[in-house]
């Protein structure tokens, strides 16, 4: 059921047909992973396996209640280009991005197939995770997507906000989104991939800042889990700078498998930020390959789980050339029966001398039933390298709670401050202040830190 044919398949050149066919063949051979696969030990895919998915369809802007329905998903104060996908399908009506000038770097997959087929073929087929079932499935179903191609030495001024909206539906839907970012030599671009949900019922995301429900489609409610299976490929050419955000704020009905495949050339500087708030089951794969001398890669993430959420982060950082610096910082806050996984694999290839790879993962458990599994894996085939890793799973420091209370701060605020500050360390690494602010708000709301926000964030000097 995962390979239902979309209504309208974008016809393409022969290579595209081959690309899809090969993806299909790989997926059929690999099948869905099970907990017997080392990389999926802690995450059961029963919900996806048993799902009766149909391909999701576009909903018109009118039916959604106009562009206003998207207001709650904006990053206040951020002047961004907006590319909107509704149920995995590009919505021209709701999108607004530059078509002239330096910032005009966005095309739909269909447009790119027409305009730059050779470039597209070259990069789409250059994918380092051939043995990944979900990425193969995504290739098999390749039909919708966004291509961001930044010419050499162009610094894209307005960040690109790629808003992926799933609208509540009575049936289970699936979408296979693809995003390709090619930053040519010396260029710079920021891309925010943002997954959200709209419904007429009680999805928590589509509430505006005044607390009122907005959007929603004819009182639609979820008919069962839906599935977003997305692949993003980033190519940072020589000295290019790419900042990528994955912001997961979907409903609790979502299965979301994200694969971010990064390819870095000499002197390039890439940052990947992940913020996992929503979804029933989220798998966040981040795979940078530092394939040039003197590259830098920051892999930063925050996952905040409650209820029965399963948030699984799988890092695979490959140092292929000398003098690469990678920094992995992942933090998780888990309440109720939420479960999280962090597996951080660092592979240093033979000859990748003077590699400097750091990894740290910290987990804060707020309930006795929350769980975090953390697993560093180092594979080092070079001689002269610096590799450090550290992982912690702990509870709120009661000594710190007492210390704060002894200064007159009430217990709830004291605990809230400690949770907030734990998570804020991840947010602080994000370059875009409006993103940080929105996520701080999401954190406060999700963990019911209430008053803390005003105390902690109010009038920061």
């Amino acid at each position: 059921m995962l390979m239902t044919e979309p209504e309208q398949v974008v016809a393409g050149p022969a290579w595209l047909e081959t690309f899809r066919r090969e993806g299909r063949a790989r997926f059929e051979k690999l099948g869905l992973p099970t907990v017997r696969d080392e990389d999926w030990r802690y995450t059961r895919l029963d919900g996806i396996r048993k799902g009766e998915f149909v391909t999701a369809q576009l909903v018109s802007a009118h039916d959604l209640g106009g562009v206003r329905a998207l207001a709650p998903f904006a990053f206040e104060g951020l002047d961004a280009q907006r590319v909107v996908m509704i149920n995995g399908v590009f919505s021209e009506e709701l999108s607004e991005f530059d078509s002239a000038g330096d910032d005009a770097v966005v095309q739909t997959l269909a447009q790119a197939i027409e305009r730059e087929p050779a470039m597209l073929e070259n990069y789409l087929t250059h994918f380092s995770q051939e043995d990944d079932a979900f990425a193969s499935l995504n290739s098999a179903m390749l039909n919708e997507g966004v291509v961001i191609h930044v010419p050499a030495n162009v610094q894209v001024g307005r960040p690109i906000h790629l808003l992926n909206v799933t609208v509540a539906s009575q049936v289970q839907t699936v979408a296979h989104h693809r995003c390709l970012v090619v930053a040519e030599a010396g260029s710079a671009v920021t891309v925010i991939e943002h997954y959200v949900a709209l419904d007429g019922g009680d999805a928590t995301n589509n509430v505006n800042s005044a607390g009122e429900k907005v959007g929603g489609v004819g009182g639609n409610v979820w008919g069962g889990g839906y599935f977003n299976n997305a692949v993003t490929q980033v190519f940072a050419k020589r000295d290019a700078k790419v900042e990528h955000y994955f912001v997961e704020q979907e409903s609790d009905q979502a299965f979301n498998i994200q694969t971010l495949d990064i390819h870095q050339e000499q002197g390039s500087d890439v940052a990947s930020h992940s913020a996992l708030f929503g979804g029933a089951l989220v798998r966040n794969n981040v795979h940078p390959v530092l394939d040039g001398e003197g590259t830098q890669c920051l892999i930063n993430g925050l996952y905040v789980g409650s209820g029965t959420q399963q948030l699984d982060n799988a890092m695979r950082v490959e140092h292929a050339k000398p003098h690469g610096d990678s920094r992995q910082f992942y933090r998780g806050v888990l309440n109720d029966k939420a479960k999280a996984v962090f597996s951080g694999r660092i592979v240093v290839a033979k000859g990748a001398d003077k590699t400097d790879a750091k990894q740290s993962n910290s987990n804060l458990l707020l309930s006795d039933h929350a769980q975090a599994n953390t697993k560093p894996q180092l594979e080092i085939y070079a001689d002269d390298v610096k590799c450090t890793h550290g992982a912690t799973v702990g509870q709120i420091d009661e000594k710190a709670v007492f210390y704060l209370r002894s200064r007159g701060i009430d217990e709830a605020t004291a605990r809230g401050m400690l949770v907030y500050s734990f998570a804020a360390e991840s947010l602080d690494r994000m370059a875009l202040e409006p993103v940080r602010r929105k996520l701080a708000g999401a954190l406060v709301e999700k963990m019911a830190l209430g008053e803390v926000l005003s105390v902690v964030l109010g009038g920061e000097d």
Partner: protein
Amino acid sequence: MSEVLLEIKDLHASIDGQPILRGVNLTIHAGQVHSIMGPNGSGKSTLSKVLAGHDAYEVTGGSVKLLGVDLLEMSPEERALAGLFLAFQYPVEIPGVSNTQFLKAAVNAKRLHDGLEELDAAAFLKLMREKAKLVELPLDLIKRSVNEGFSGGEKKRNEIFQMAMLDPAMAILDETDSGLDIDALRVVASGVNAMRESGGGGRSFLVITHYQRLLDYIVPDYVHVLVEGQIVKSGGKELALELEDKGYGWIEEELAASAT
């Protein structure tokens, strides 16, 4: 005589079923400085933490009143809001929470409790500058996470800085002098003395220390000796000199003699 600020009567407390405080009696009037000395493990920090409301300790008997109100019924934050302050022997490091955020929350909680308006950012900054000067605490230290990576002396100075910010009626200083260099000791002591004079002279201090040196700077009205969870001897400031000179052995001998 001035009003009674803190009144401890026959206080018993234990931890993990082990009795540590075994009948402490102590009355502190407004404006007085009392000092507690005593051997390691005699219960000095236990007393201070029981007073501050640490829930690891079980109060098994006795009473404590702050300005006539039952202290033991209050939560730690209520005690702080009622005017009690403890400068910890071992201040806690809190990564991620900046001193500024933390103090702002604390100061405004206190102001709210006192029926005052919250301080705005500018007023708060001004207050912070002024109090930091009092203990010569560098401002860049204040911007950092609470006590994180602070040296031993910096932590102690930060405690006194917090005390100055919170303006308590009753301050307990648990070995604030340990870890301070000679100059810092003088600075911190003069900060305490400045606070002693401010606030109409009604502020009281309970100074826990092992060393007479601190009491040269912060001159106490009374000195008490705590041994095995009880105050076994009290006197004027000369008692501290005598202890410095002779240690605790003679007191323990005196006790043994009177017991037989």
